């Protein structure tokens, strides 16, 4: 059994080497970098302009702006679509490129292949979106006085906030990764299901408490340090629920990912190479 684990570990590492390189260097994935970098570019532009004009920044205000961007753009759109781009293509993309048989002709269990590819997707998206989060937060801190930044980071709980935002971005990749991994197997044309998931996630604030829990964004919201309430004409429709404790939210996101892997494992075992029908 030990030798089996050692073999599977070696095979997963070999898959990671191939997949991570492929995911990072894919030209078709350029838009994912743009999505991830958009808030950082915005905040750095703002920071550099403030530095140039010697304007003093309000850390609390910038933190709120970041929280809004993170909650309404980064998690709901950037990470969501980034995961769509990476995880939907883990198998489907190679099917379309007619290169999936390369893996299926190796002495690698289909489930090991699934785990390897999923982990490669999680690592890729986490690196991209956690870096994006960190760079955006760095932009906020770079244009406040140094002692204010240090005070915020080390005495005001700021460091905890920074780490929580980064961890939340990674958990978003893990959760959405599980969802889109399965969708890549189940749907030949996943556009409509992706739009439905997007709408479901967007409607989360307005759903009854029980239904709220059937989403990824609900658990992510429970983790973020500064929660921005729903705004706009329909904000009064929002149903306020008690946030889930952090440990339960993390556990739930991991369970969503595990459920995705379990369903994916059922599909990958049945997978056939029939490029003509793709």
């Amino acid at each position, binding site marked *: 059994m030990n030798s089996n684990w050692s073999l599977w570990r070696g095979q997963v590492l070999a898959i990671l080497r*191939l997949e991570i*390189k492929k995911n990072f260097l894919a030209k078709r994935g350029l838009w994912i970098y743009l999505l991830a970098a958009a808030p950082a570019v915005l905040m750095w532009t703002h920071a550099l302009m403030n530095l140039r004009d010697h304007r003093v920044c309000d850390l609390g205000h910038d933190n709120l702006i970041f929280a809004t961007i993170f909650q309404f753009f980064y998690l709901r759109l950037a990470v969501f679509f980034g995961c769509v781009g990476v995880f939907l293509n883990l198998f489907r993309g190679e099917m379309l490129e007619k290169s999936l048989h*390369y893996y299926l002709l190796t*002495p690698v269990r289909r489930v090991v292949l699934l785990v390897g590819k999923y982990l490669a997707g999680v690592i890729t998206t986490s690196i991209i979106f956690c870096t994006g989060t960190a760079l955006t937060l760095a932009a906020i801190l770079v244009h406040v006085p140094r002692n204010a930044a240090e005070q915020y980071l080390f005495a005001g709980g700021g460091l905890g906030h920074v780490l929580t935002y980064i961890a939340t971005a990674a958990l978003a990749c893990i959760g959405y990764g599980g969802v889109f991994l399965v969708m890549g197997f189940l749907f030949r044309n996943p556009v409509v299901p992706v739009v439905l998931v997007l709408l479901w996630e967007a409607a989360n604030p307005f759903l009854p408490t029980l239904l709220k829990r059937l989403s990824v964004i609900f658990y992510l919201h429970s983790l973020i340090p500064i929660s921005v309430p729903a705004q706009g004409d329909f904000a009064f429709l929002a149903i306020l629920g008690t946030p889930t404790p952090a440990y339960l939210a993390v556990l739930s996101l991991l369970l969503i990912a595990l459920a995705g892997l379990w369903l994916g494992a059922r599909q990958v075992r049945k997978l056939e*190479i029939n490029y003509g029908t793709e």
Partner: protein
Amino acid sequence: MNGHEITFENVSRFYGDVLGVNRVNLAIPPGITSLVGPNGSGKTTLMNLMTGLLRPTQGRIDILGVQPHDPERLFRFVGYCTQYDSFPRGMTGYQFVYSYLRLHGKPHAEADEMTWRAINRVKLADAAARKIAGYSKGMRQRIKLAQAICHDPTVLVLDEPLNGLDPLVRAETIALFRSLAETGKHVIISSHILHEVDAISDQVILLSSGYVVAEGQIHGVRTEVEDHPMQILIRCSRPGALASRIFELDTVVEARVHNDGKGLLVRTREPDRFYLMLNRLVVDGVDLESVAPADDDVNSVYEYLIGPDGGSI
């Protein structure tokens, strides 16, 4: 069923309503076995079933005692050179083979050594560091072959492996297949190039419209084609004189002087008996140069069973 053969037991595969292969029963021994048939006859389907890329709709396949849906065991001793001409993005020839061996669980040094051995065997060392995307058709074919043989498989499945190879490489590749078969391996080849199949195969499997129409050694298959008596070409002087004697035999269906006037084309239902009696028939003044079957080859068998246009029988 045993652990030395590749067996198909009543295997069928349908793509929806479309037939891939139907009720295939085969036992493939070691040596070079060629799958011959027109496009759409089921050659690739049979190979994909053998390697688990497809699953049979019904029936059972056994590859030296292992089921094709157990890749972890199967690909330890099976190598498959597919007809798919697409590769993982951005890979060099070296990486293509090396990564495959790493997926086998080989450590770096061993994978590196095995990679170079396979690449040298297909004579692609000079291009190994180049991206496959820049390879010619023949080079892509060779790197696929290197990948298929790099782990020294016992069963080698090759889908149209000679496609795109120039004559020299083609000859070298055929020699490679022969050397592998001589070591007791199963080498299963699909090909449209019939004269090459004829030259290299120990046995053939003829497919048409998803059915196996004949299998076995070429001579045996040819003998079973009763609708077409065997043709024998006798090179000799005075073919006319020989023809008049040959007509005395009841086994001879037809005898006619060859178009070039330097031989006789005989059609007989009992070639073995005809060979025995031929010496008695040779008349004085007729010099016999050679006696050889004229249609005891895959080409003829293919034409008789499947039709000259590659249609169904």
